[in-house]
């Protein structure tokens, strides 16, 4: 075990899987110059055939990834920022997600599409997207959004070994966070299994991606007030570990979802609906959502920061839920 950053975990996972399997290769914009440090040493280790700089051509490279996957390769396509997934919507939706299905199982697409959630850094609306929820509305895509270096390494390796298309969303607010990460080349976290990041008894907080560290801070703060939060990180949004979430809600009787995506039709909204549908009898109050407000992300930092989930908003939601239970005593 060594303590490494979230970005280093991405690098290690890719490096190990490319060493393990010749069919794995990586392509994307500015891979060789290695903008964010997730391909340091790759050209030296694997050469320019397996480490490919591409034109700025997201639709083309995602589609090329799909074609290469169909003929037995295992491509990693890095589109860098998740905002750049939009030009590739055509290939992601019509080819990547649907090819196996429309051809009756004849196609296999072991393809990883990487992108970063690059919000909270004064980059304005076209560079600050958190679009995983959009892809949750499309069958055929596995969707992963890790919050820690440990999870990132294990899930990235699982994604590369998976025989289906996987979209890896890498939260920029977690990039520099550090974690103990196993060196075992076969360390894998199976896709679809959530994790209890902090045990608690009063309120279940289901937090997504960069929402997880914020929820953990809120839990720490509320513990001083005698309110115990249980923080659940689904880690994968598709498949979603519903059992883990529902078990926790059945235990606490209260639920908050925390999601850096815009609230309407967010992952947090889907999880809230799942809880309301399947654990209504256990609930002692409404399921509350702490998401990003339904407006665009502005450039000016003074008005940007408050739009995303904050410790204060999570704490207020938790107090409200606990208070609802004892209105008379309050």
């Amino acid at each position, binding site marked *: 075990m060594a303590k490494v950053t979230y970005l280093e975990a991405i690098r290690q996972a890719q490096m190990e899987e490319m060493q393990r399997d010749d069919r794995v*290769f990586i392509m994307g914009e500015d891979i060789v110059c290695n903008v964010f440090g997730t391909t340091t040493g790759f050209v030296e280790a694997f050469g320019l055939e397996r480490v490919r700089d591409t*034109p700025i051509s997201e*639709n083309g490279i995602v589609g090329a990834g799909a*074609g290469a996957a*169909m003929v037995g390769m295992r491509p990693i396509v890095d589109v860098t920022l998740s905002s750049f997934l939009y030009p590739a919507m055509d*290939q992601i939706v019509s080819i990547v997600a649907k090819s*196996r*299905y*429309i051809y*009756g199982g004849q196609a296999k697409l072991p393809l990883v599409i990487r992108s970063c959630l690059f919000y909270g850094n004064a980059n304005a609306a076209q560079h600050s997207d958190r679009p995983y929820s959009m892809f949750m509305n499309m069958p055929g895509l596995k969707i992963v959004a890790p919050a820690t270096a440990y999870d990132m390494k294990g899930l990235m390796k699982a994604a590369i070994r998976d025989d289906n298309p996987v979209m890896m969303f890498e939260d920029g607010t977690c990039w520099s966070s550090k974690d103990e990460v196993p060196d075992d080349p076969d360390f894998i976290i199976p896709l679809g299994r959530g994790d209890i990041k902090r045990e608690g008894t009063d309120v279940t907080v289901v937090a997504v991606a960069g929402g997880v560290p914020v929820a953990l801070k809120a839990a720490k703060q509320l513990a001083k007030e005698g309110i115990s939060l249980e923080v659940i990180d689904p880690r994968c949004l598709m498949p979603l570990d519903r059992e883990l979430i529902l078990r926790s809600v059945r235990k606490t009787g209260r639920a908050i979802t925390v999601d850096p995506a815009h609230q309407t039709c967010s992952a947090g909204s889907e999880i809230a609906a799942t809880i309301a549908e399947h654990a209504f009898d256990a609930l002692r109050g409404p399921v509350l959502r702490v998401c990003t407000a339904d407006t665009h992300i502005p450039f000016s930092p003074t008005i940007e920061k408050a739009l995303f989930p904050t410790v204060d908003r999570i704490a207020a939601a938790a107090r409200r839920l606990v208070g609802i239970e004892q209105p008379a005593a309050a």
Partner: protein
Amino acid sequence: MTDQTNDRSLEKYRRMLRIRHFEDKAEAIHAQGEIPGALHTYAGQEASGVGACMALGESDYMVGTHRSHGHPIAKGAKLRPLMAELLGKATGICKGKGGSMHLSDFSVGSLGETSIVGSGVPVATGAALGSKLKGDGRVALCFFGDGATGEGAFHEGLNLAAVWKLPAVFVCENNGYAVSTPARTHVPVKTLADRAKGYDMPAIIVDGQDVDAVEAAIAQAVERARTGGGPTFVETKTYRYADHAVNMGRILLDRGEEVGEWRKRDPITLYRARLLEQGVSAETLDAIEREAADEVEDALRFARESPLPEQAEAFDDVFTAAVPIPDYLADA
């Protein structure tokens, strides 16, 4: 004519006839309501598909379009699973989940027949990239229409293939119309082959009604691809007899005398005349036509006798592993 060229010529004739009989039958039973959904037929374009596929090896790849029936037959696919697919049967090549726009048989090297115009181009490019990385010498051929050349996916795919000198062949089946819009209103260049200039890609324009000419042009492109020379753009000038889709309740576009003019250069009639001239007997050619018609009848019989898919099969192949089926459909 040597025996070998003779066999090859007869095979081209056979495959074109299979397509024509398949399409005639499909159109007839679609009119009677036996085939659900839209039906896009390939009749008229047979020489383009067959000429191109005959220039490929069995293990080479092919990506096609919504006008999907002709390509797999041209590449050598069996007819039974194709017809069963049109009827939405469980024995269909796509298990009843693709239909007319997706007759794709991976066992003959197909990597999809895709119905979003232009979307197959990056896929073929990726298959060619896979071949290059593996060094297995396979070539990826992509069919698309004149309409696709207005799509971003087309340009991105060509650009990648050219930059990386991939073993790809891009076949523009120019039938003159993007649905109902004539090429002159949506293409600014004189010929579609001019599109390739922006990618410094060699281009060949060929008579798409002449199966031998198409085969020769594609063979040249395949040779270039296989020997590391990179991609080639081939424009086959051809024509579809039917409207964009058949039996739509109204004709989208009345093309007047034009259809009749093109029928005078029907690819199958032209080829029959050439084969007769080359000394093949009429009896031989008639026998091939009867066999093709019989194969289509056999495929239809198979399709009709095949079971429909079970409701639960709507959930197969979303992923490689099973996905949950909602309670209200579990026992349906």
